[in-house]
């Protein structure tokens, strides 16, 4: 029998259903793996006791012939999802002692489906970052290393802990959130699948907000099938989130293997950016060929406002964040500074101590762009550009059904390599932010390796609420790419 931690989510489901393994056995294996992988720093909070309790409950249900779609399956939860009675930090000092008294809708959906929680994963502070280095709880390390090197690489971000945990077989799958690429970019550089659903597909209730009009929860998994499975369980219309949308959640797995014959795949020319690495370019070309070979029709399309997407994003997201993060004031919960003097002192000191550098930078940027006299020049113009970026996709979809692009401009980089250059860091999201601005679904599928053996991903972007087609095309890529690079488990020796 294979090591249970090597299971995909779908394999584990089938094994548990067939009673080849109990949930407690499976969970025990993962609890051990979580512990062994501590050098990766993928978790902020491990919840082994809770996991085993949940597993026992699942086993009892399975014994009675009951059980949901994810019954007894151990998952890792990004520490941005509020979990009742379990500390939720958002990777920040300001929430380092925060224990919510409520459950996010997405995690509640997972528990209702029978899933087991292994713990809360590390992340960039308030999901602001592309390397997981802005976490108050320290950086996460990518399970993959360059061939012949012992240098620690970043796992991407902001869902770096979730990506590392899935990549290292420390959980069956994990939740992430994606505001500008925070699911897809870490998935790409850790060799896993990451899906950002359509805005409104998953409820945002109980997810610590970064940028409300862009944030969306999604699955991070080993395979495209697993992503289909997990998304179906996460998604729901929610009366507690006015921006969630009442659209039927289909059985994504059912259409997964339908192939891409006749599917029109658009190749946006603007994604061929200056100074793009030849390896990425070659991979993209390969992807085009793989889909063409399976019967897809390749179409050249144009998304003319692409170059404005990143600056637009870095106005809209910080603007919303500056307001969303105002509630962390030391008054009611979270970190509260001592020796504060007056109320202004309480605010200033609590926030100065509670927020890290990147969060402070974005609050300042956001406050600036919303300020009187700058609002029209920045925020209003960004909103207009956002509309144009979204319109670009609408135009493109007159000619095609999905788009194929690289997921990231490059592979994982060394810890510390970009931490002093915020703009270089922001460029990691150049292929992913457009999708958030337009509210569309997109998946990153591991598709190849660099010469140094580091994972690279390709991205399929779909039409709003057409995750089924995105997953189907993603599956076609997965089959052709046959990506099977697993990291050497160096952390076990560490």
């Amino acid at each position, binding site marked *: 029998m294979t090591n249970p931690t090597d299971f995909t989510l779908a394999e584990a489901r089938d094994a548990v259903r067939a009673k080849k393994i109990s949930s407690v056995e499976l969970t025990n294996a993962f609890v051990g793996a979580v512990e062994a992988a501590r050098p990766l720093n993928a978790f902020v909070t491990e919840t082994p006791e809770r996991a085993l309790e949940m597993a026992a409950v699942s086993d009892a249900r399975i014994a009675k012939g009951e059980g949901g779609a994810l019954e007894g399956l151990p998952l890792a939860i990004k520490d941005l*999802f*509020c979990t009742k009675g379990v500390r*939720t930090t*958002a990777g920040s000092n300001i*929430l380092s002692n*925060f224990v*919510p*008294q*409520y459950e*996010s809708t997405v995690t509640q959906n997972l528990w209702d489906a029978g899933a087991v929680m292994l713990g809360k994963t590390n992340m960039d502070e308030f999901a602001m970052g592309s390397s997981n280095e802005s976490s108050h709880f320290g950086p996460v390390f990518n399970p993959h290393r360059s061939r012949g090197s012992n240098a620690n690489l970043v796992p991407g971000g902001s869902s770096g802990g979730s990506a590392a945990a899935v990549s290292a077989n420390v959980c069956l799958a994990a939740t992430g959130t994606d505001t500008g690429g925070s699911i897809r970019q870490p998935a790409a550089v850790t060799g896993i699948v990451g899906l950002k659903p359509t805005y409104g597909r998953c409820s*945002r*209730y*109980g*997810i*610590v*907000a970064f*940028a*409300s*009009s862009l944030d969306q929860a999604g699955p991070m998994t080993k395979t495209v099938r697993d992503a289909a499975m997990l998304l179906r369980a996460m998604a729901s219309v929610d*009366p*507690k*989130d*006015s*921006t969630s949308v009442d659209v039927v959640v289909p059985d994504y797995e059912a259409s997964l293997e339908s192939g891409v014959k006749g599917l029109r795949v658009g190749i946006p020319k603007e994604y061929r950016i200056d100074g793009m690495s030849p390896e990425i370019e070659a991979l993209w070309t390969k992807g085009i060929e793989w889909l063409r070979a399976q019967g897809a029709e390749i179409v050249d399309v144009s998304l003319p406002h692409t170059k404005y997407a990143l600056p637009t994003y870095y106005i809209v997201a910080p*603007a*919303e964040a*500056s*307001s969303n*993060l*105002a*509630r962390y*004031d030391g*008054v*009611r*919960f979270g970190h509260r500074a001592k020796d504060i003097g007056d*109320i202004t002192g309480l*605010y200033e000191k609590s926030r100065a101590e509670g927020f890290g550098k990147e969060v402070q930078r974005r609050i300042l940027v956001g*406050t600036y762009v*919303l*300020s*009187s006299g700058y*609002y029209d020049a920045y*925020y209003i113009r960004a909103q207009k550009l956002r509309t144009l970026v979204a319109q670009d996709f609408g135009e493109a979809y007159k000619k095609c059904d999905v788009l194929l692009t690289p997921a990231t401009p490059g592979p994982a980089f060394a810890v510390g390599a970009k931490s002093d250059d915020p703009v270089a860091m922001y460029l990691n999201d150049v292929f992913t932010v457009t999708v958030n601005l337009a509210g569309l679904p997109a998946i990153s599928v591991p598709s190849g390796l660099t010469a140094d053996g580091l994972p690279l991903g390709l991205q399929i972007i779909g039409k709003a609420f057409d995750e089924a087609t995105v997953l189907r095309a993603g599956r076609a890529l997965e089959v052709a790419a046959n990506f099977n690079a697993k990291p050497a488990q160096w952390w076990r020796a560490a």
Partner: protein
Amino acid sequence: MSERSVRTIKGGTGDWDVVIGMEVHAQVISRSKLFSGASTEFGAEPNSQVSFIDAGMPGMLPVINKFCVEQAVRTGLGLKAKINLRSIFDRKNYFFPDLPAGYQISQYKDPIVGEGEVFIDLASGESIPVGIERLHLEQDAGKSLHDQHPESSYIDLNRAGTALMEIVSKPHMRSSEEAAAFLRKLRAIVRYLGTCDGNMDEGSMRADVNVSVCRAGQYDKFRADGDFKHLGTRCEIKNVNSMRFVQMAVEYEARRQIEIIEGGGSIKQETRRYDSKLNETRSMRSKEDAHDYRYFPDPDLLPLVLEQGWVDEIKQSLPELPDDKKARFVAMGLSPYDASVLVAEREIADYFEAMLADGAEAKAGANWLSNEYFGRLNKAGLSLAHGPVSAKANSAIVQMISANTISGKLAKDLMDIVWSEGGDPRAIVETRGMKQVTDTSAIEKVVDAVIAANPDKVEEVKAKPKLAAWFVGQVMKQSGGKANPQAVNAILKVRLNLPDEG
């Protein structure tokens, strides 16, 4: 538009126009808050009516309360205002301990209600229009309690998130009386509609009053072309919480501004506070210290889109409003002033209408209430709802007066009895023999007896006809107040040979 008296203030250097606009915060009557399911009941234990949303907990999202929207639409319709079928909720960002999220959800550029109009009633009987600029929905903040601990302030979030309507007038008021009348009318309208209890003591209605002064005549130029340049710089007096204080604050503030300008100074745009103990306004903060609220559309909420059909349904269900009721009362023969007094409070109007329904004649009923019953209530410090005499009983008394069954004097005696002992006024009149004597032969007997007993007075009255009143008094006394005063007068006139007017 009806004419109104000129209301300028005399300064040392000439006449001044006072110009007043108002922003009124009215707490919406609703069982739960604007964006959460927490209760809104007044007077609960601190922090016992706070949901995770109200407390600004991480990951919490606002969900609009449809009933509050309905209340705002109802109010907009009552203000004869335009209902905007698409409106936007914005975030108004500022740090304050009783503002948990660090922003207030409000409506900035696209409010739910646009321009409307309210007629205000003045003591002169004039009724003049005041324009409504807009009405928008917003959240209330919590309360900071500074008197619970020597070094710390406490926060009570029960009120945080409660729905408010901010009703903004145009600068169409010209005197402190008009300002108070506007607030009074607004209060009447929302109370008629059941959208706000108008309780200023509990803070469910509070006014920010904008006051400016300009040289006499400038205001008319402003009304002619709508250009604010004709008006003076305004100061905003925050949170005035009674009609009387509105009136006093405006008086004080207008004088203050005139004195400054006449002394060669200029008015700084600023926010001021009214101190009712000292009867003065004091500066709170100048325009330069004003917050930059960084308004932007709340990304957690979709634009609020209403269906015209739904608005029409609400319109169908509106009660008769004060102005319409007043017009109806005037048509029944009441003076505009009496009618406006009766419609000022819905409970008074309802009481009056119950009297009419019971058979009282309108004018007599109105006179009786305002000359007799309201005075007694006032003296006893009672509201109409807590008064001891029912509309039916008052109606019976009025009807007996109209039918000459009892005199006005007897009616007062009867009221004494009904007030303190209760009971059916008609039965009391029967059993206690209080019926007015209109039988002239009976009255003549008493008159003759009084004349016979007082020959000296008869002599005097010939020289001083005014002394006839003494005879009336005597006759009334001897008849136990039951003689019909008109009949007594008529008989005395003949017997004493008095001139026609005396």
